[in-house]
């Protein structure tokens, strides 16, 4: 009698154990992502409400005629993708990706300090120019 029950119970215990482990892992995952993530903001959002010292991920377009190099540091201004709105002055040290130039969209992480966005080293990413756009007269191009 007991022998017939044991295998089935063993399987059920295994199943419960496995599911609990999976749930714990998922919970840990969710918790760490929400605490470790940095908010993605646009320049207008950053100017409106930025907590100093907090890490943000800034995305936007590099303003024309705003790129200046000083030694191995880079200064430039970032606007919203639409081109309107306030610009954020960025000070950055680190690798500059090859596609970087005025008018391109960039992503970089960093924090606000005295009105300047100080970029984290090597965090600058420039988006490759659009390849996959449908350039129909009614369609949008980026």
């Amino acid at each position, binding site marked *: 009698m007991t022998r017939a029950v044991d295998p089935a119970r063993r399987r059920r215990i295994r199943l419960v154990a496995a599911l609990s482990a999976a749930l714990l892992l998922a919970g840990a995952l969710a918790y760490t992502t929400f605490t470790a993530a940095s908010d993605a903001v646009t320049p207008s959002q950053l100017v409106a409400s930025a907590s100093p010292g907090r890490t943000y991920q800034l995305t936007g377009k590099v303003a024309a005629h705003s790129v200046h190099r000083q030694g191995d540091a880079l200064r430039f201004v970032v606007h919203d993708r639409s081109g309107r709105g306030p610009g954020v002055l960025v000070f950055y040290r680190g690798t500059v990706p090859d596609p970087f130039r005025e008018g391109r969209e960039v992503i970089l992480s960093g924090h606000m300090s005295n009105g300047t966005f100080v970029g984290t080293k090597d965090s600058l990413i420039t988006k490759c120019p659009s390849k*996959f756009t449908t350039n129909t007269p009614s369609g949008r191009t980026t």
Partner: protein
Amino acid sequence: MAPLGSAALICALITAVYATAAAIVGARTGRPALVVSARRAILCVAGLTTLCVVLLEVAYARSDFSLALVARNSSTDTPTFYKLTAMWSSQPGSLLLWAFLLSLYSSLALHATRRKLREIVPWATATLGVITAFFLSLMVFFASPFEAVAHPAAEGAGLSPLLRNPAMMIHPPMLYTGYVGFAIPFAFAVGALISRRTGAEWIHATRRYTLLAWMFLGCGIMLGALWSYSELGWGGYWAWDPVENASLMPWLVGTAFLHSGMVQERRGMLRVWNASLVMGAFILSLVGTFLVRSGILQSIHAFGASTLGIPFVLFIAAMTLGSVALVVARRDSLRSTHRLDSLLSREAVFLLNNLVLVGLCFVIFWGTFFPLISELATGTKASVGPPWFNRYTVPLALVLVLLTAVGPMLAWRRTTAARLGRVLRWPLIAAAGAVAILVAATPAASSATSLIMFAGVALVLAAVTRELVHGARARRSATGEALPLAAVRLVGRNRRRYGGYLVHAGMALLFLGIAASSAFVNQHDVRLKPGQTKRIGGSTVTYRKSVVRVFDDPSGTGAALSFATVLDVRRGGKHMVFRPAHNLYPSADPAAGKFSRFFDGENTSEVALRWGLRRDVWTAVQPDLTILQRPVAMADAKFGKSDAQTQATIIRALAQMYEARGPAATFRVIVFPFVAWIWLGGALLLLGALIALRRPPTAKRERARTPAPVRRELARQPA
């Protein structure tokens, strides 16, 4: 040209819809002739898409700028190789590639199964017809590759220089062959579920296609990593970028399916799991295809938003809901015929391996889509970076390596602990020995995770060696062959098994390369003026000189200006000379100044790399071009209207001025230990997959013999 192509696309769409309808009607009314007709229709679609591909390639080869696609992505001075491969570096072209590969693959698979699985094949045909029709309709209604230009220009825009690299051109077809390949097992799984033939026949019949797809996808991912490493100036092969992740996820699920499929074939277990896995693999392939062109996630690859996002999302949602509904509706026919007998069995290890792989996929999925998840939950888009990904994938990878070593050591059904200990004895001793040597002779002990990984890798390699040697010895004692010959014959007669072992060995080497090159990497950025020397962590670097090449690109990519440098690196007695460069391509923007357009266009890094089995030395340069800003602006103002000859002279003068003034440049020098083993491991993986793909020789021999009693004796042949 263009009208014929458009007509072929429309005809293909109509034919694909017919194929779907005919297959469904044929299945429900039991008329095999309709099913044959549907299969013929898919073949016609394959022919039509081939025609489209040929037409488009001819247009590229002839630089026919009356086609918008050719005008946007090619030019008369683009090298021929890049002209022909430019077809898939655009939205409509890549859709055509998808449809072409899918119809080709479908025709092959349906032809191979035309006499088998009579109840499954019609539904599989219908499924493939639906997917093909979707991609064709995208082209017909949204993004046609044959869009004509009313007034063709004399010159095209040319191919982006970032893509002028052979690896980058083979990467998309490889990836797509992988993505498309998963459609076959998906379609057959759907067919099996609908027709309630949920045994292992559909897995068995499509196993080769799954393996092929998995192989190509793996190659595509490798090529992408190799391109990033050898072409981009940041110095690395993997950045956990959303698009990179999107290609890895279906590959992980595909790996899981290759293993759990075996469990269903042998023991009839995991039916729900397998059906779900293969559906997940294909849907993830669709998600991967969609991510590259959608712009919904911030990525270096996200090529801007396009109008195809919504149709794709709707299609993926429909596929997902349909798959889930089908599995739920057929859950009665998906009950296992056997149960897990023991935790010390190959089935159990495969199950664990599946959990780890799916866990990895889930972690990567969560991290990749977290911006969207957090936006739903909190209203702001937040993202996680490589450190988060590494924190979770590394432990899972460690468990995976250990399972890879232990799995083949177990038998199906049940292996006793004592027996397992005996089988593992020599591999464990070898692994312990390897770890001891590493701790004593290298700085490996400074990273605990790397040390565990190295131990796991040693265990896998030792276990594979043991299987090979022991098996050859067993064969030798049965047949008297010499050991090397016995080993070769052993592999030849057990291709699936030993091909799989070779894949495991390749994976182990790959993990070795990744662990060593991440944990022990030596990276420095240094700013030098010409003639200056600095010491950076174990190496002495000297910026010897700078040479500016005008209209004379040594790397063959057509760069107008190439800022080449010569860098001396001395490391531990060795003297190496590197020539990293920075290439500038002129901008095609008509509003740009005559001279500043040379500096405002695309630029790429030409990485200078020295390969080695023990370490790679990687260098890149970023020259400081600020001293040229004022002269270029002056040249624009004064000589903007001059002829081409004068312009060329001015450019050369600017280049000479740069060389003479000798401004500083920032060099990045990275020493990557054992990174070459990633590519070597990948090659071994590919070889193993190829071996596992080939048909075993005995199948042909045995089919030739006819009398029944003789065949019974065949069951008594030696291994």
